[in-house]
């Protein structure tokens, strides 16, 4: 067992866990942050995507040990009690979530994409979300949600 300490959604957490335990399991089972999903357990589907130090990672491939000192954001950190994050609102309105199992990962991938490209081209959206599989939507409405979220992005609000 190892002591691992990191911040999740703004809260500092210290845990005693097997060092090679998957971060996905630490989040879901130790911290009960079950919004992060497991689809494949081998880095292919992206439903376990989280942001770690601002980078999009598949938490099923990250050993707990690697989270030491990290700043982690999961889907639970996106909305506050009263209000959805604009990206969540766009997914909701545009039909970007059907069964919803890929949605938490997609939302974080979108946040990551828009941080990198506030005005993404269609190509950048397709490539930026290519690590996140969705079997329900055919992606069209997810892309539309991303475009809509980009149009609401703070960088544009300032321009306006």
């Amino acid at each position, binding site marked *: 067992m190892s002591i691992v300490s990191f911040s999740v959604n703004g809260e500092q957490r210290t845990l005693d866990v097997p060092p090679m335990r998957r971060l996905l399991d630490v989040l*879901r089972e130790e911290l009960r942050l*079950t*919004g*992060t*999903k*497991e*689809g*494949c*357990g*081998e880095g*292919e*589907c992206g*439903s376990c995507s989280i942001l770690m130090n601002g980078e999009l990672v598949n938490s099923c491939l990250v050993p707990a040990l690697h989270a030491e000192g990290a700043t982690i954001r*999961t*889907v*639970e950190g*996106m*909305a506050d009690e009263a209000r*959805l994050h604009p990206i*969540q*609102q766009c*997914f*909701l*309105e*545009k*039909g970007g*979530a*059907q*069964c*919803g*199992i*890929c*949605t*938490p990962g997609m*939302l974080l991938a979108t946040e990551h994409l828009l941080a990198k490209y506030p005005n993404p081209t269609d190509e950048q*959206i*397709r*490539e930026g*979300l*290519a*690590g*996140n*599989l*969705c*079997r*329900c*939507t*055919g*992606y*069209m*409405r*997810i*892309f539309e949600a991303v475009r809509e979220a980009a149009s609401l992005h703070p960088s544009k609000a300032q321009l306006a």
Partner: protein
Amino acid sequence: MLGEISRMAAPASNQIVGTPVLRKEGVAKVRGSAQYVDDLELPEMLHGATVRSTIARGRIRSITFDPSIAWGEYIIVTSRDIPGKNTIVHLFEDHLCLADDLVSHVAEPILLLAHADKAKLPAAAAAVKIEYEPLPAVFTIEESESRQTAIWGEDNTFKTYLMEKGDPDSVWATADYIVEGEYTTGAQEQLYIENNGCIAEWSDTEGVTVYGSMQCPYYLHHALMLAFDLPADKCRVVQTETGGAFGGKEDFPSVIGTHAALLAKKSGRPVKIIYDRGEDMASTTKRHPSRTRHRTAVSKDGKLLGAEIEFAIDGGAYCTLSPVVLSRGTIHAGGCYFWPNLRVRSKAMATNIPPHGAFRGFGAPQSLFALERHMDKIARVVGISGEELRRRNFLHPGNHTATGQLVADPIDMNAMLDRVLSASDFHAKQARFVETNRRSPIQRGVGLASFMHGAGFTGSGERRLNSLVKLEADAQGRIVLLVSSAEFGQGTNTILCQVAAQALQIPYEQVLIAQPDTHRVPNSGPTVASRTAMIVGKLVQTACENLLATLRESGLLEEQHSAAQFCHACIAHREQHGSLTGEARYQSPGDIFWDDDKYKGDAYPAFAWAHYVAEVAVDTRTYQATCEGFWAIQEVGKVLHPTLAAGQIEGGVAQGIGYALYERCEYKDGHLRNNQMTNYIMPTGADLPPIHVLFEEIPSIHGAFGAKGIGELPMDGPAPAILNAIYSAIGIDFDAIPLLPEDIFARMMRQSSGGSEDLKPEEAGPYYSRSAPQDEGLEVPA
């Protein structure tokens, strides 16, 4: 005052159906707070695992437990622990719950383990040593129909059908052309992103309760009653949020749910079984592989005179739902064309592959792939375009389908085709690609497929289901829908609440839907067969009308009412009578007749109609075919929710593109070798083209506010449209899917063997015939 009046008047024109209201459970999904089965923890819960066969067929000789494991810590369940019948009931009772003597496929469940520590299960499962006496196994339709090895029943045949119209034997002598072809399709994994999973609890007084990811709570309920020998009220099934299903959670939850329940009973504690991806892919159902043979008589002016179609599917080791899948495939085999004479013979064969099961489209994508490829070939023999051949043979209102069903909808297939050809710029592209293909290693083409898809259960299925829907008012005067229809992404919750809100003339927010729980909701049938919007929706509408009538008869509500008046009336009724409910039971429309023996009559209450256009590029250096554009037009009756409906079509088209170009199940000795997402490839967002969705709306009298089924339809068209486009790009007819770069490479590297692969009618003469197929002797069912 004026404001008051307009608010009062507003409900009369209250349009909720057809508007993009927010998905009922959408907020929970985008927050990540929706509770899928793996998100649930019960106190004292154990985790379960399954020990499976490693051979395709054989007898279990011995089972030994490696002493390196502390077996005392584990709960172990074998077939001897099953209190009732050792079967997972679907249509028959051939499917074992746990194999005890004979194993019939790889990954067949033999023994179950449970332990409090999930991490301790894999090693323990591997430490159960099973020795077998191997028996010969069969892996293909051809091996099965040869009957050299008997593996199921007397003749390896789960089911056969014979469907006839007119006098198909009379057409051959007078035909100008006879065109033959053989087409095959592969297995396809549903690949819902949430794997199968269930949690079961046992109580000696209450019986068994199972929570899980599923489409049909009452299927599992039925399976539990039989395996546990319990009455209905001692079995309870609750559907949890379900992360995709597509048919893959229609019959299979009966297996995993029963397994979890057996472990729960033996341990006296809750038990959770969640498959990982590898186990889910290796052991659960896939789309049935198929083989279709066509022999078609055509006149020189391109009229279909008649045909013989032989349709065969590989059902896998147990019968499960194969007869129903076969039935839908059989009825759709003649497609959306007028056949004066037609004979379709079909059969579902047993193999030693894990049982194949439901997957969106349910047999129709298989037989329609064959037909729509074949139509393009016929057109070339006749010397007209595929478009023109289709136009000369479309079903029109007043015609009768292959089962003799009258086309009653005022459908206009030609007008719809015009619309999608113009939206996709089909003709201009065709001309342009002829030019550009001369100069580029990337060869482009466009292709078309036309089809229809029956909504609801086939034939007398709905009558047998006898579905029931209930509504009740809660203490705040809101309406709660009680149905067993499951939400798994398609939008069941949302559209049924829209239908109720519109029928009751109250806001969408005032209608709630109960979690499907067999102790609370009646059996409104399974969530399959594109039946929810049409059949269950209509029942919801009727139940609402009944509830309104109750309120009006008791004098609590006027003919015209506001939302507030309705709410008050509900509360008042509850105060006076203790409750307020409404219900509706399925009544077969008087004008629908089906003859199960002759396979004639009204096969479905309604059909959806469609034309799909694919644009493809084949890179002749990498042999990769890519779909670069997709246009889908469909007539689906009233569109209840534009966003959800388009999302259904786009999602189905994406799966269809995967079916055609990406997704291959590779079996070796009955093992699925690529049971991972790393080697079973489904399309990512970067692989898919823009998908353009167009609707025509002709309200159907059979569905809620005119809705027809929509869910399965989009699976039918993409594969043939894409392969037709590939022919148009590179001039090679491919007859099999999936079509991966290695297949294109192999075909481009070898000399054509003639026949249907490269068609030269002038050389083929009036009789054009693929040389290969020998009649395998499909027999006429007695």
